């Protein structure tokens, strides 16, 4: 049988956890930028742009992330494009996160009250000014709690990058388990680490949501 869990195993798991955070950040930044473009495209005045971005969201939301990852890693390799596990995971997660964040943010932009759009138009603001000076500042406020909540999903979903051999927390757990043969103990530790990463974000999201609820009531009362 294998040895006992020692400090080196824990350091190795710690490295994995850092890569989980790194990959989450890559997915958040990449998916955030792309998702913002998707959100704007979804409410574009051009019908073709709306349809194309809507189709993208439907395609990604109808496919499991695991299949997107396999497509990005084995699929691209099979047609002659060799990508590293990090690149495959980063690109796949970016595409995936963009579809979900785009849809969340579209809802937030559209939930800015209609009179705000009309008032901005009445003040002769250009379309860009209306978006950047009136709509987006309010939409960001609405979007913060669900976006923080979605970051939990991103962190959890990076665990799937383990299947294409990217050594993040999950994969490092599998490697440690291969030397220890104590799957239950190892995966329990992994679960605790994921929980420690995700739970503070969940709490923050709930707190922001409650605070925003208060802000909203104040607005309607005043």
């Amino acid at each position, binding site marked *: 049988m294998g040895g006992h869990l020692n400090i080196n195993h824990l350091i190795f798991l710690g490295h994995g956890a850092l890569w989980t955070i790194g990959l989450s950040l890559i997915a958040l930044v990449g998916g955030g930028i792309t998702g913002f473009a998707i959100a704007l495209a979804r409410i574009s005045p051009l019908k073709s742009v709306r349809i194309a971005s809507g189709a993208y969201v439907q395609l990604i939301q109808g496919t*499991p992330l*695991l299949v997107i990852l396999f497509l990005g890693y084995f699929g691209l390799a099979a047609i002659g494009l060799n990508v590293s596990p990090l690149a495959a995971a980063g690109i796949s997660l970016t595409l995936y996160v963009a579809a979900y964040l785009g849809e969340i943010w579209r809802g937030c932009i559209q939930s800015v009250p209609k009179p705000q759009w009309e008032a901005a138009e009445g003040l002769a603001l250009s379309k860009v000014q209306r978006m950047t000076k009136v709509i987006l500042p309010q939409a960001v406020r609405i979007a913060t709690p669900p976006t923080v909540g979605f970051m939990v999903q991103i962190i959890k979903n990076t665990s*799937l990058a383990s299947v294409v051999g990217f050594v993040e927390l999950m994969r490092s757990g599998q490697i440690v388990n291969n030397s220890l043969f104590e799957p239950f103990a190892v995966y329990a530790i992994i679960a605790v680490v994921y929980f420690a990463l995700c739970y503070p974000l969940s709490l923050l999201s709930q707190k922001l949501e409650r605070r925003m609820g208060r802000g909203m009531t104040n607005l309607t009362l005043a």
Partner: protein
Amino acid sequence: MGIELDFPAVLQRWPAFVGGAVLTLELAFFATVLGAVFGTLAAVGRGAHSALIAGACKAYVEAIRNTPLLVQIFLVYFGLASVGLKLSAFTVAVAALTINVGAYTAEIMRAGFEAIPRGQIEAAEGLALSRPQIYWHIILLPAVERVYPALTSQFVLLMLASSVCSQISAEELTAVANYIQSDTYRAFETYIIVAVLYIILSLVMRAGFWGLGLFLFPRRRRLGTPL
């Protein structure tokens, strides 16, 4: 760089794809039904007078919602094995998916329960309805009616998430794809086909839930708006 795509070579394996898709739907079906019951119980438990039960239900929901499904599946798989239970991959997959979707269902159902006006329950008490009658007709059914869209999209996400069960060798759609691509060396075509199949499955599920909703909640259809 020559890229040659040969979809027919992969498509001739269609019986395997269909078998995988059927198993994916079976996984989704059992986990949805069991998870809905389990999650509703957990949601009821969170409102229990006993702090122990309420705390246990909250801990369950938070633990599941803040850890990846992949880790949960491995924990169930090796956990059951370590206590000497030798179950098929399919059973383990259903158990893990049920535990997972139960937590999300509990959160959604709790929102539904909280949206029931107190006055309706008091009115039902005033009309001398029994406790089970109140729970069923005044709380549960209207709550489900209210959160039905959120529940159904959660169940579609569950079907997609069941792809992770390929990692414990449950022979569902993604596992079939892994096998076919390692056999034909046509990974790109295989995963494109599987992605299309998943999209079809999710559309079928959405349509099914929409039809079921019309049948289950005629009031919603008559009003033309969500309650």
